[in-house]
């Protein structure tokens, strides 16, 4: 396994730096929000992790489609990497969402479209890993995984609309703001800097993690191959 390429090493360092800077921006630089107080600062990482999570699940679906067309195991490794990272980030998004909800809506959990869809998406991709665990043959495991990411990623938007149709109280900060939803706030200059920087930083962090995880996937495949060769 060739050693870590220099670009990857640089990316690792850059990611750590970006994380530090965006944490600074979110916690100190951005002004305190008048109505909600300090908890609003959770918002930056809440949205950034959500964005990365969705990015990852999208990447997984694309990798799934490409695998189904080409049956090249490389894409299966990419898919698993994307799903694994997104699972972690989406989990954080859900927890941050509920921590933020506690003081603002004084309940830990509200059945509103975004939070519920996030939870369902998390369950879908946990089911994805359980499906993979249940299959021995690597080719079939890859095929079934690809099919399920496809089905799963298609059901997420529909789930979101069906719940939004069900009812909505989640504050919409950007886009069609629903004034009646409590907890909305307008982003002043400082906040916007922190917000967009967090988005950018997390995207870079995602790519770094993604690349590393793919390398690890290749390493695992190589070990498996060697194991077969030596054991026979």
């Amino acid at each position, binding site marked *: 396994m060739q050693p870590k390429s220099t670009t990857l090493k640089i990316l690792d360092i850059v990611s750590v730096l970006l994380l530090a800077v965006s*944490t600074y921006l979110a916690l100190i630089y951005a002004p305190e*929000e008048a109505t909600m107080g300090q908890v609003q600062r959770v918002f930056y990482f809440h949205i950034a992790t959500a964005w990365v999570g969705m990015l990852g699940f999208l990447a997984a679906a694309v990798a799934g489609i490409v695998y189904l067309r080409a049956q090249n195991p490389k894409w299966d490794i990419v898919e698993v990497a994307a799903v694994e990272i997104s699972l972690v980030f989406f989990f954080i998004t*859900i927890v941050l969402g509920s921590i933020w909800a506690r003081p603002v809506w004084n309940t830990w959990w509200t059945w509103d479209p975004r939070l519920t869809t996030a*939870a369902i998406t998390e369950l879908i991709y946990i089911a994805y890993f359980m499906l993979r665990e249940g299959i021995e043959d690597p080719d079939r495991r890859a095929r079934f995984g690809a099919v399920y990411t496809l089905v799963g990623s298609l059901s997420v938007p529909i789930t979101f609309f069906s719940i939004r149709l069900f009812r909505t109280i989640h504050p919409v900060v950007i886009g069609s703001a629903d004034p009646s939803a409590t907890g909305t706030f307008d982003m002043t200059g400082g906040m916007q800097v922190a917000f967009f920087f967090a988005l950018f930083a997390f995207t870079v962090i995602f790519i770094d993690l993604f690349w590393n995880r793919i390398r690890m996937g290749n390493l695992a495949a190589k*070990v498996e191959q060697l*194991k077969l060769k030596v054991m026979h």
Partner: protein
Amino acid sequence: MFLQDAPPDTSSYMIAGYVVFFLVTAIYLFSFFVRSHNLKQDLNALENMKEESAPPPAREETKAAAPKPKAKSTASKAKSKPRQAKKKVTKK
């Protein structure tokens, strides 16, 4: 909640949020390093075994009935498959 002029003190929730973020990230990174460390170890163990079992000069797999390596794989934790770090979803 809106009575006092100063914004309500919800910093404890903010701290909780960021603690959760860094904790979960740390756990994931830790499991990531453990897995890749184990894999690297397995790789070296297997590569040594391959050297032992095929010492003849010809590097590539020779047809000669090379003695099957009887020794069990000595890799310390030769897991059949790297355990995926299972994400326990602890919803409050």
